[in-house]
């Protein structure tokens, strides 16, 4: 045994540690692996376009969406299935919704999210 034994052992230990941590990090970075979240956003931010996207990284697949004009009851509703890892766009026609605050509410039975554009100005 000599110093080379220490060096080879060090290299092997470092390599194993690095590969292990890299593998762990890769899983952590994956939006779907061991994750349970989803996101709601508009397709086009700055225009009057109301098309919105549900991007799913959770174990829930079924979502209920509703469109609310101002503070009224939902004027349009629907259900949609979005599998884990997928994103789905729901397209809405803007003409009917001018001069109001339009809120899009989406829920998965447990959690609810909202986005909105305010055309009142």
């Amino acid at each position, binding site marked *: 045994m000599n110093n080379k034994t*220490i060096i080879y052992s060090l290299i092997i230990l470092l390599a194993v540690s690095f590969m292990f941590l*890299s593998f762990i*990090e890769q899983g952590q970075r994956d939006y779907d692996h061991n994750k349970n*979240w989803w*996101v*709601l956003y508009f397709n086009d*931010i700055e225009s009057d376009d109301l098309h919105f996207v549900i991007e799913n990284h959770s174990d829930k697949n079924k979502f209920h969406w509703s469109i609310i004009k101002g503070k009224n009851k939902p004027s349009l509703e629907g259900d949609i299935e979005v599998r884990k890892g997928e994103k789905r766009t729901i397209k809405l026609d803007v003409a009917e919704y001018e001069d109001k605050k339009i809120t899009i509410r989406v829920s998965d039975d447990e959690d609810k999210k909202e986005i909105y554009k305010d055309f009142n100005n």
Partner: protein
Amino acid sequence: MSFIFQQILFFISIALVLFVPGYFLILATWGKRKIFTDLEKFIISFGLSIVIIDFLMILAGKIGISLNIVTILLLILIFAATCFGIYKKRFKKEIVEGEERELAFSKNQIILIILIILLTLFIKTIYLTNTIFPTSTDLGHHMYWSKQISQTGELPVYEKMEITENNGDYQISEPQPIADFIIGEHLIFSAINLISRIPFISYFPSLVLLLINILGVLATFILTLRLFKNCEQGKNISIFALLLLGPLYTISSSQAKFVSGGVVGNILGNLLIPLSLYFYFRALKEKSSAFLTLALFITAGIFYTHHLSALVFVYVFAFALLTFTIFNLKNIIKYTRNWLNIIWSKPVIIFLLFTFIFSLFVYTPSYIETGAVETAVGGPSKATRAGLTFTQLKFTAGEARMVLGIIGLFMLLALRTRKTYASAILIGWVVAILLMSLKPQWLYLDIPSNRIANYISYPLSIAGAFAFVWGINQVKNIKFKKYYLNARVLYVLFLILATFTAVSGLYDNSQSLKDRGEYQKAVQTFNASDYLANNTGNEDVILKDHNYIIADAWIKLFFMRDYSYPLSRGFFKRYEDPVKKREMCTLWMISTPNTVNGKKCFEGTGTNFIMVNPDFDGSQFEKSKEFWKIYSNEQIAVYYKNI
């Protein structure tokens, strides 16, 4: 890229960037003579490579050569080939002079060393499992600059835009120079990224820091081996130092916490400082100008890597010199002549000239250009810079390590061997950092004291190892009957001390292990950042929050527009800083967007996107007709200012 292929590229890039240049420099300087043990050569190659790559990339960048994969590989190849040519010319007839048998370990010692390394790496790996995903603020800031180098192929200009006020009107200024970053902290990451193609927002920065951390611990190990080479128990002292610095307290600050925290400069400093002391020691002991040249080379590397480490090194050097002078006053003139003989030699003079020209005409470290040095001296300006208490320092260093280290310091001062270079270096190193941490006002220092304290564990580990091993060895030689001492009692006391040390160090590790990582929240931050990066342009201005968003410092890597972009609402206490007045716009625009000040700031800065954690900062935007909520996940809400 498949995982296996990515790993292979990563290991190849590490070998090329962090080992090859240093190895060939050693070859050109000493040939294959047994000046070093294989382990020393391995560790020294690593340290030298970091400095070599830094200077090669700076030179290439300044000449105007674009920094890309081809350039980096060519630089390494040309450097290695040049060194090899020098080696062949200088060492035509290779003379292999003797083996370093004095530093050869026994079989049991080698097993013990490997076990210590295994335990160290095991604990750090377990800790990093929850922190390997990039979330830390410091690392995010550093990787911005590394990514900029990779993307632009140019050396970075350390500057950032700021929000300025002029007669009540606010605007975003042109970029202003900043002194917080030094080029040596970023170049090696760019080099590895360019060769391996692994993105910055991944495991690789943390793993590179882990590698530097481990090699820093081993650099201290080989330094200890050399310092105590003439001591009968020298190898045992170095192994105990490895134990104190390795698996014990291995997660606390300046170790694995700094790896995950991305405290790049400090980690590099804790590698380069022991390595430079190693070269200085051998230069003086062996009266070698070659060693002195490389010592100066590593020192230059420190100055181009981390200003705080450079300052620490200056004080350590000064105190070591002072210690040696005090204990060798009678013969100081003789010693000075010896030193001047080593200094006044061709390689040293040429190197000093080269460094002078390089620093003046090629590249001056940013902190010197911006006059940051003046802000670090002159006496403490805040309470956090007025020195730590001994208790605070004890917690930083680790209680057992502190106790042993202080005992070791007193022993070094008391023994006749205090006159030696080895003692002077070690005493100077410990005393310098103790004083800088506890009594900075005595040294006219104006730096956060807890940052200095992070350097103490390295010299204390060596001093502590000396205290323990030397002490237990002396017990063997005591005439017990003469002093009415019972040998068994003393051995048991040492056993208790060793147990206390081990338990203290391992308990500290257990307290620091995190329950779970924050990657679940961080991926949502990155998803939101991706969304904004794909849906905004150069005319848009984004403001995000630092207080409640995880991994927010990494958001800037999605845009690469400016170090300060997106704008950021910082920690609340920073806006109350009595010493340094801060801009208030970033606070007002998130906290009170509907007030007069808030609206003025929106108008002046052109901010039209706000990224916040809705649990803390949603309501003030939802009340306003001026904002649309355009993005929503568990952690992040994005508001767009429509008016």
